[in-house]
């Protein structure tokens, strides 16, 4: 056991697998339903189609506890800041499904009040067609999302995060160093001025006494 843990390749791959397995089979949706697609989602969720079969057991009505933002319905410009804010409130990792024609492209609302696709506001992982989409289409989208999550690498993402943090720390250190240098130079200049003034004063005094 101790020897195996020493091999980093085995640990990374298995941890990725474990994390992805957990994430894949417990996708809790946040239903952002504004139109008829939300009705289809209801039928997807309950008995006949039963979304719990693939692990989406609970529908969470708070962004803090959910993984998938399910945008089901027309998004108007008045609604857009609210949607963006809810997306920002969700904890990482988070995914977005655009359900139906309206959320994907604005649908037939080609007018002054409707956002032409929520990808103008937030990044989208899976699009579903249909007006409204069938529950089968929704299941298909969930399977697609699961496939996508299985391809993700937790360790790679973590490495990238650490890299970013390192770079940030380096940049900050460089900035601080530059600031300190500037400050020191200023101090040195001040001291030089002070010394020069003293010297001049001394010279003046000496001249006075000579006279």
């Amino acid at each position, binding site marked *: 056991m101790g020897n195996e843990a020493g091999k980093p390749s085995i640990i990374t791959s298995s941890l990725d697998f474990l994390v992805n397995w957990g994430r894949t089979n417990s996708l809790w949706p946040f239903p952002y339903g504004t139109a008829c697609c939300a009705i289809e989602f209801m039928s997807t969720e309950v008995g006949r189609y039963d979304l719990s079969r693939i692990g989406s057991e609970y529908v969470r009505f708070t962004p803090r506890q959910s993984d998938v933002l399910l945008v089901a319905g027309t998004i108007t*410009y*008045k609604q*857009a800041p*609210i949607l963006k804010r809810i997306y920002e409130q969700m904890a990482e990792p988070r995914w977005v499904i655009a359900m139906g024609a309206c959320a994907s492209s604005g649908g037939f609302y080609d007018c*002054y*009040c409707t*956002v032409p696709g929520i990808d103008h506001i937030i990044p989208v992982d899976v699009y579903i067609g249909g007006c409204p989409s069938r529950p089968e289409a929704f299941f298909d989208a969930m399977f697609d999302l699961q496939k996508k999550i299985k391809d993700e690498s937790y360790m790679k993402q973590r490495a990238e995060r650490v890299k970013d943090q390192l770079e940030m720390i380096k940049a900050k250190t460089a900035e601080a160093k530059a600031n300190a240098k500037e400050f020191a130079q200023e101090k040195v200049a001040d001291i030089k001025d002070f010394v020069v003034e003293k010297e001049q004063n001394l010279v003046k005094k000496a001249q006075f006494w000579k006279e």
Partner: protein
Amino acid sequence: MSVENIFSTLEEKFGAKRETLDKWGVTAVVSGAYLHNVVQFLKDSAEVKFDMLVDIAGIDYLTYPNHEGPRFAVSYSFKSIKTPGARIRLKVLVGEDCLKVPTITDLYANANWYEREVYDQFGIVFEGHPDLRRLLNHVEFVGHPLRKDYPAQKRQWLSTNDYLLPELEKRLETLGYKVIQRSKEVEPNDDEFLEGSVKA
């Protein structure tokens, strides 16, 4: 006891003409100055009492074929509950130079939001309205989208949510509640407003 008599009374009393173009013949064109009196008459003292305001709609005649006269109109639809089937429509013509119509919110409470909608979509100002704000479009919207000269595909972004808490508190205070303390979370943060947004 019929709607036909009401049209003759309206013409005698208020100089309201019957619209000939109306397919059903239930429209009377009223001048804005008499509108409030006409509505009060229809509600309280007419033979058939029209006690239900069904709708208020704005009309823009800019691209209407063979139209002469003022550009805008506001159409009021009334219905009688006690006399089934009795309906009447009043039309007020509004010129582009003076976009003003008296409000009827003191007679029909539901006119409040109808008038706000017409103001929002057509820019017609209802004088004496208690709270004339946009109803459907957001606060940062410029222009009036249902006017014929507004490009239908012109989209306008909203940078932040409408801040509706002060109005809610005002309404709560009228109901007898009192706001003692406001939690920090509901106070608008300056960072949340994007550049150029309206802090209402």
